[in-house]
C-alpha cells in the first residue's frame, strides 16, 4: 500500500518530535551507587529511587534519552529531571524535602535520664559500664532531676519522650516516680505529647511498679537475648536466673499493661551467631511481633572485655540476613513480625516523613534529637557519648544541669562542631553516595573507633554495615512481589 503523502504532511513522524531532545531537560540533584555490576541505585534528595542499568544511567546523565521512553517518564515523575512541561518539579521537590526535614526542626524529642548506674547484672558486653548495686552515690537526686526537667521542657519538640536508663533504673524507682509526677505536672502548662519508657531488666518489677506504669501509661523496654542458655550466658547475674526473671517480667507486664506496652531488644554476641532462628522463636513464644538484631557497639565493657573482637562485621551480617529471611518466611505464613532496623530503613525509603531514629540521621541526632542527663547532672549528646565518658573520654559532655544553662549546652562548641563537621551531605564519600537519603552520620561511633567525628568511610564499620544492609534490602525489594509487599507493610510514617 502506498503511503498517503498528504497525511504525512499533516502528521510528523515520532522521530521528528524526538529531534533536539538532547539538552532539552535539566538534571535535578541526584546520586547513584552500584548495587551489582550492571545495576545502579539512583536516588534524589528526598529518597525517591530508581534501579537502572549502566546504559540508562549514562543516557540520563548525558541527556541522550528519548523523551517518549518509559524510562524518561519514570525519571520525570520521580523528580530526577525536569523539562519545559514540568518545571513545577523544583517546587514539588522542595516541598517534599521540607516534609522530610520537618522532624529535625522539631528538635530534641528523646530525653534519657540515667537514674542509677547500679545494676544487679554483670554482662560482659555491657555498653554502660555499670557500678555494683550498693553505691547510692551513683543514683540521680531530686535536685538533678528538677534541673534536668527544666532542660526537657525548653525543647520546642511537640512530642517529648522521657526514657529511664541505667544501670538498672528500677533500683532507683523513687526518682522515676518523682520525675514522672513532676513532668506530668509541668506538662499541664506545656501541653506536649508526653511519653515515658523504662529500660529495665525487669528483675525488680512488682505490682506497685506495674500499677504506677499502668496509671501513667509507661512503656517497658527490656533485654532478651534468646534461649535460657544463651540469655544467661550473655547476661549473668547472681542466681543465674536472668532469663527466668526476664520472661516472667515480660509476661506480667503484658498481662498488666497490655502487649503493646512491653518490648525487648537483643544484643548479638559470638554465642548468638549460630542460633538466630532460636532467638526469634523466643520472641514468637512471648507473642512479640518485632526484634532488633543488634550488633555489639564499641563502648563500655564490650570494649574492655574485648567482646567486639569476637566476631567481624561479615559474620554479623550473615546472622542478620539469616534472621531476616526467617522473618520474611514467618510473614509469608501469616504472622506479622518485623526486624526493627530493616523497618527503620524501609520507612526512610518509602515514607514521605523522616524517621526519628537518632543513629541514622544527618545532621546527627546527637543532642538535637536525643539528649542524656546523667545521674550526676552531666549532659551528653547521646547515650553512646555517655558510655564513652564512662570509659574516661568526656569529649561529648555538653555541660552539667547544675552549672550550665540550656543555651550553654545546645550552643556548645562541641555540639555545634560535631553537627557541622559530621554532616553526611558534606563528608567525603557520603556526599556523593546513592544511599545518603537513607543513611546518616554517627560522630560518636567514628570518634570512638577512629578518634575523628567524621571518620574515614572506606574503613568505617558504620558505613560498611549500612552499605551491606542497604544493598541487601534493595535486593529483597526486587526479589518478588510477595516479599516486596511484606516489606512495604513494615513501613511506618
Amino acid at each position, binding site marked *: 500500500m502506498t503511503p498517503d503523502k498528504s497525511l504525512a504532511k499533516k502528521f510528523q513522524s515520532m522521530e521528528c518530535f524526538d529531534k533536539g531532545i538532547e539538552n532539552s531537560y535539566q538534571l535535578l540533584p541526584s546520586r547513584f551507587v552500584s548495587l551489582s555490576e550492571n545495576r545502579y541505585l539512583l536516588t534524589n534528595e528526598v529518597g525517591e529511587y530508581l534501579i537502572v542499568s549502566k546504559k540508562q544511567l549514562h543516557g540520563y546523565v548525558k541527556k541522550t534519552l528519548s523523551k517518549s521512553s518509559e524510562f524518561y517518564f519514570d525519571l520525570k515523575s520521580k523528580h530526577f529531571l525536569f523539562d519545559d512541561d514540568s518545571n513545577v518539579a523544583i517546587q514539588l521537590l522542595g516541598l517534599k524535602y521540607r516534609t522530610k*526535614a520537618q522532624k*529535625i*526542626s*522539631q*528538635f530534641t524529642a528523646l530525653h534519657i535520664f540515667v537514674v542509677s548506674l547500679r545494676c544487679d547484672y554483670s554482662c560482659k558486653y555491657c555498653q554502660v559500664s555499670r557500678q555494683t548495686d550498693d553505691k547510692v552515690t551513683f543514683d540521680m537526686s531530686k535536685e538533678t532531676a528538677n534541673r534536668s526537667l527544666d532542660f526537657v521542657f525548653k*525543647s*520546642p519538640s511537640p512530642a517529648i519522650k522521657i526514657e529511664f536508663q541505667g544501670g538498672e533504673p528500677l533500683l532507683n524507682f523513687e526518682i522515676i516516680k518523682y520525675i514522672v509526677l513532676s513532668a506530668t505536672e509541668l506538662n499541664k502548662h506545656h501541653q506536649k505529647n508526653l511519653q515515658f519508657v523504662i529500660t529495665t531488666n525487669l528483675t525488680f518489677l512488682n505490682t506497685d511498679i506495674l500499677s504506677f506504669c499502668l496509671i501513667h501509661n509507661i512503656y517497658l523496654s527490656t533485654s532478651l537475648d534468646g534461649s535460657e542458655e544463651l540469655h544467661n550466658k550473655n547476661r549473668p547475674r547472681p542466681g543465674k536466673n536472668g532469663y527466668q526473671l526476664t520472661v516472667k517480667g515480660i509476661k506480667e507486664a503484658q498481662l498488666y499493661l497490655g502487649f503493646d506496652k512491653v518490648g525487648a531488644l537483643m544484643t548479638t554476641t559470638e554465642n548468638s551467631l549460630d542460633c538466630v532462628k532460636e532467638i526469634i522463636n523466643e520472641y514468637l513464644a512471648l507473642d512479640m511481633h518485632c526484634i532488633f538484631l543488634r550488633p555489639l557497639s564499641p563502648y563500655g565493657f564490650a570494649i574492655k572485655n574485648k567482646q567486639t573482637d569476637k566476631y567481624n562485621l561479615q559474620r554479623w551480617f550473615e546472622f542478620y540476613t539469616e534472621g531476616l529471611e526467617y522473618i520474611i518466611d514467618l510473614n509469608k505464613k501469616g504472622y506479622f513480625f518485623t526486624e526493627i532496623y530493616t523497618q527503620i530503613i524501609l520507612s526512610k525509603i518509602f515514607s514521605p516523613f523522616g524517621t526519628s531514629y537518632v543513629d541514622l540521621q*544527618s*545532621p546527627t541526632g546527637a543532642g*538535637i534529637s536525643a539528649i542524656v542527663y546523667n545521674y550526676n547532672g552531666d549532659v551528653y549528646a547521646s547515650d553512646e557519648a555517655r558510655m564513652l565518658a564512662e570509659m574516661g573520654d568526656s569529649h561529648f559532655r555538653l555541660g552539667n544541669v547544675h552549672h550550665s544553662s540550656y*543555651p550553654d549546652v*545546645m*550552643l556548645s562548641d562541641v555540639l*555545634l562542631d560535631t*553537627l*557541622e563537621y559530621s*554532616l553526611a*551531605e*558534606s*563528608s*567525603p*564519600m557520603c*556526599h*556523593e553516595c546513592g544511599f545518603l537519603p537513607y543513611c546518616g552520620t554517627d560522630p560518636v561511633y567514628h570518634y570512638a573507633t577512629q578518634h575523628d567525628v*567524621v571518620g*574515614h568511610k*572506606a*574503613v568505617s564499620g558504620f558505613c560498611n554495615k549500612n552499605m551491606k544492609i542497604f544493598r541487601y534490602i534493595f535486593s529483597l525489594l526486587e526479589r518478588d512481589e510477595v516479599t516486596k509487599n511484606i516489606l512495604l507493610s513494615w513501613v511506618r510514617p
Partner: protein
Amino acid sequence: MIQIPNTIVFDNKVFSLDTIKGALYKFADNCSFDISCSNEIITVTIHSVDENQNLIARIRNEVIDQDLRSIIAKETSNVRTLILANAFSNTGLIES
C-alpha cells in the same frame, strides 16, 4: 595482590584532580597513593598498606581525606548552613 610500585596515568583534560582524589579515597582500606601532576598528566602511584609502612600509608590517605573534606566543605557551605538553620529554627536559640 598489588605489585609495588604500580602507577596509573590520567589525562587531566579528561579527569579532574578532584575526581581522581574522590575515587582513590574509596580504596584507602587497601592501599595508599602518591599523586603527581606534570604537564597534562596526573600520575597516581599505588602503594599497598604494608605493615612496615603503615604510618606512611596512613599519612598519605589522611592527606587525601583532609584535602577532600576541605573541597567539599567549601562546595557545601550553603547547604550546611541551611540544614543546621533548619535544625535550630524552632529553638529560639539563633537569630533569624
